[in-house]
């Protein structure tokens, strides 16, 4: 139903004021009901309700400009071979008048309006609701089953049931004779994903379109079969209203809806959604991207990375990234433990400060190593975003500096890591930080001196317990993984 969505998005897209906030997608990410993020022509695309959508060159900064004919509501997109299938719900009654929705699919060789290949095919209707039945055929979510190549589509709203149909991935048409199946109630904006032997149905609960008071949230159930039943963590069928929370409101945003999953690399996944209201952007509806974590077989949204001072501990041994400098002993008045005077008042021992140790550090580059964490200045890293350097899906690039100094972690041309005395903003001093599906992080230099282009391959890597280096990212190895533990 749903021209309300159209007007809302038209309103959102019409606005051109940019209020930058770190750790929310930069630019003008105003959208409602975003499709799963798709990559085309080296750019990222997401389509929303109405006719348009957002484009991003780097995944971090978003602006309007994506084009989708047909209007209607809440599209989804999937790449099949060298083509994109764009699926959207056209509302029959329109203007809220009825529930005779229609789902249409159309192909395009490119999603980029600037590409010579950019031309949509005629839309084909694959499902419809007649306005009387317990279903409103809008809000499609598509899955190409990686196990057998079959394509499935879920759709529907609070007006009755969520339904599942099968499409032909070659034509984008409905499989002949395929009868729709009811798989859930009381949700909308569903999406299907597959992982590790389970199909997951994600649905949006709560209420949209009420700004900062919107209660939209995303829940899920899972099934061994794509046709369901989709059961939640307490054994409740989504046909009985079941669902386990994936994401609700967060810090200064609320109303996540319209889940989309993007796999960036093995073990590196993000979920996209809209937040009904961004409290730092006049309460507008914005694109949200969060790391997608998997806990005990259930998807959970991670949090956006926060600036701060951290211990950076390897997943390999738990050693912490540190400057390769002298260990400076701390002073303490000591008595043998069996001679302690119980009547003596307790004293606080101050932290070792940067000033106490800094003069022992050489100038110029200082190497890094990993050592057992001792809560010392050479082990504390302050991480700040460098918004002007752009970003990637989920975050801006960061500077990683020894706390209280301008000394920055940097990649070197011989594929090692070091620290440089001054932060210059050069690409080898910029780091991409992504939370992995198991909750750990990978840390990658934006560029490696002597190598062309943006690095998406090499990460900070424990080649030995105490030796960090750069090596190819491998999710299967704990050598690729790090944890950030607040040192504040």
């Amino acid at each position: 139903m749903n021209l309300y969505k159209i007007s809302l998005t038209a309103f959102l897209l019409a606005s051109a004021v940019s209020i930058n906030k770190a750790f929310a997608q930069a630019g003008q990410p105003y959208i409602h009901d975003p499709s799963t993020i798709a990559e085309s022509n080296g750019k990222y695309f997401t389509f929303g309700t109405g006719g348009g959508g957002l484009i991003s060159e780097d995944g971090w900064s978003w602006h309007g400009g994506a084009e989708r004919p047909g209007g209607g509501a809440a599209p989804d997109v999937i790449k099949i071979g060298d083509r994109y299938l764009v699926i959207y719900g056209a509302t029959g009654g329109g203007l809220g008048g009825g529930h005779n929705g229609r789902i249409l699919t159309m192909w395009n060789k490119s999603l980029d309006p600037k590409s010579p290949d950019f031309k949509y095919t005629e839309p084909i209707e694959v499902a419809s609701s007649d306005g009387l039945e317990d279903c409103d055929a809008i809000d499609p979510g598509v899955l190409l089953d990686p196990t057998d190549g079959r394509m499935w589509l879920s759709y529907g709203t609070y007006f009755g049931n969520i339904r599942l149909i099968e499409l032909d991935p070659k034509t984008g048409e409905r499989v002949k004779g395929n009868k729709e199946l009811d798989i859930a109630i009381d949700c909308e904006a569903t999406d299907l994903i597959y992982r590790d032997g389970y199909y997951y149905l994600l649905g949006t609960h709560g209420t949209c379109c009420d700004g900062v008071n919107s209660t939209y949230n995303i829940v899920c159930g899972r099934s061994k079969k794509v046709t369901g039943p989709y059961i939640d963590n307490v054994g409740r069928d989504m046909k009985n209203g079941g669902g386990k929370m994936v994401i609700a409101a967060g810090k200064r945003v609320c109303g996540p809806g319209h889940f989309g999953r993007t796999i960036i690399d093995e073990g590196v996944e993000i979920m996209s959604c809209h937040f009904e209201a961004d409290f730092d952007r006049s309460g507008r509806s914005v694109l949200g991207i969060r790391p997608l974590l998997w806990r005990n077989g259930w998807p959970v949204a991670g949090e956006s990375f926060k600036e701060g001072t951290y211990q950076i501990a390897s997943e390999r041994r738990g050693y912490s990234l540190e400057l390769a400098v002298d260990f400076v002993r701390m002073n303490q008045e000591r008595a043998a433990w069996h001679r302690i005077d119980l009547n003596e008042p307790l004293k606080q021992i101050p932290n070792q400060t940067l000033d106490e140790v800094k003069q022992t550090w050489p100038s110029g580059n200082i190497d890094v190593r990993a050592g057992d964490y001792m809560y010392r200045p050479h082990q504390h890293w302050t991480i700040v975003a460098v918004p002007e350097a752009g970003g990637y899906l989920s975050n801006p690039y960061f500077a990683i500096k020894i706390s209280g100094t301008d000394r920055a972690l940097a990649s070197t041309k011989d594929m090692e890591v070091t620290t440089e005395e001054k932060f210059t903003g050069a690409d080898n001093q910029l780091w991409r930080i992504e939370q992995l599906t198991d909750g750990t992080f990978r840390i990658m230099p934006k560029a490696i001196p002597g190598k062309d282009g943006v690095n998406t391959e090499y990460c900070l890597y424990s080649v030995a317990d105490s030796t960090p280096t750069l090596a190819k990212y491998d999710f299967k190895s704990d050598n690729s993984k790090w944890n950030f533990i607040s040192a504040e």
Partner: protein
Amino acid sequence: MKKILIPVLAVLASTAVRAQNPIITNQFTADPTARVFNGRLYLFPSHDIISPVEPKKKWFSMADYHMFSSTDLTEWTDHGIILSQEQVPWGKPDGYSMWAPDCVEKDGKYYFFFPDAPKEGRGFNIGVAIANNLFWPKFEPQQKPIEGVMGIDPCVLQTSKGESYLFWGGGGLVVAKMSDDLLSIEGKPQRIANLPEGFKEGPFAFERNGKFYLTYPWVREKDGTECLAYAMSDNPMGPYEYKGLIMKESKTGCWTNHHSIVEFNNQWYLFYHHNDYSPSFDKNRSVCVDSLFFNADGTIQEVIPTLRGVGVSDARKPVQIDRYSEIGGGASIDYLDKKNLFLGWKTLFPSAGAWVRYNKVNMKSSCAKNVCLRMKSSGKAVFTLSLGGFKTDLAVESTGDKWEDVNIETRTLPEGISDMTLTLKSADAPVEVDWVSLTNDPRPVYFKKPAEAKSTPDADGFIRRWSILEPEKMDIRSNVVFTDSYLKETFAKHIVPMKKLPADKQTTVVSGQKLMWHHLESNSYNNKLFRFSTMLGKPEYGVFFNVVTVINCAEDIDNVRLAVGSNGASQWLLNNSEILTLTGDRRMVKDDGTSKRVSLKKGANILRGMIINGPGMSDFCVRFIDESGNPITNFTISNK
């Protein structure tokens, strides 16, 4: 209950109407002006009513305007009132003279032209009201009517050169050039001359292939009624040359006709009116539409009014075959209920051989195997249903001379668009059919009448047997008002007092609304109140429900909890004590909330519930569970 704010308001302000001719089935409509804006067809008719002031049923009475729209000319959305007489600064607030309007777009704004009786003086003036959009139209009327224009039936012609002309009726047909702001006329109004004699009004002018068409209702014979005629010219202001008829006079004597002509998706249409829903009083009219065709020389072919009208009908929905394309073999149509003509018509099949054809139904499913006939008969019958070349026989039993939805399983029905014919092949008695729909499966039946005095909970413990009171209509536009304190107050205020358990069909008056109790057994674990309302033609949104049932226990059952899911908020009382309230904007989720531990006593326990909802599909599921969460099933359920 998604779609709060704009959506919800839109849902409540607009209703879907679906029909052939007449196309608007929930009210009288006349003088239709159809315009296409942004790929959507908008209809701006007058709104006939029976005059609330004397003399009643004597003359035209129109107090406001509704706007309708459609993308396929079969589904119509009623956007509600867009302007009413008391809003017009210069108009008589009780003039009931909001006659034939027009609406055009210029520079992104919508200009609505309408006649009205002025506060002072006699006759009619023509006013303009402006809206910035039609999605959420708010037409602001100008302070004064258009100066220098006395008359009715405004029509604005916007030419391909970007000029605008105002045509109206006032002692004949008049035209004047309009200023660029569409708020005034320039120069002297000019009477259209040289047309054949006779009363004329309701001009509708349009441009096609460089020619200008002036079309108008015309009384061509002395003491005659109106036909639709037209003239053509090379210039918007004429001179116009009479060309012929577009539509002949009504066969049943409806005195007026009034029309517009529009091209939509590469087809031209004639919108006109006729008094189908008011055969005995022709000042209450209804809008119809039929296709219109041009000859190669630009002249217009006469349009024969049909019942079938235009558009392709979704075969899954009730296809009103009484709006036939062709009928024969003795079949005929009649009103379903002569006391409420808006209920529409039925087709009478008196004996074998009677048939009716309805062109262009679209079967969108590739696995439809069910034909549903809404029918009435007192004997067995066999119909033949054909869809293009596909034929199947439908054998039906007697319905005991009552209206029933009769489902017949067939082999797979053909997908796509075809003409549908229903022929009575053999019959023990005459058969009447209201509509036909073709679906995958029979539509779900949500409730049934309880067959036995007592029921048992289902295997999961859900209580399906209830006495349900028809909903009290509440002014709730969205569930955002559902704060805990609002709910506490509202539940306390709207609970229906009950000295003894309600009998089936017992009525009670709540807030001035006469409501009836229904003893029902739900066919599903969740009791679908929304469909209960649909079934009874009662309000579906913005509603307050009272339900009650009796839990009969053979012994005391201690330490149980009432587990409920409801859409939306609900409150539950066991033996008159409140035991659970589900607050906020809730959904129907199994075991969404439970009461504290309670006891069911030996004998009868009265379980009451109240469910309140704004724009959602109201329903609820209720069961008792034990300490381990397992369902309690060792009791019976009754209405008494």
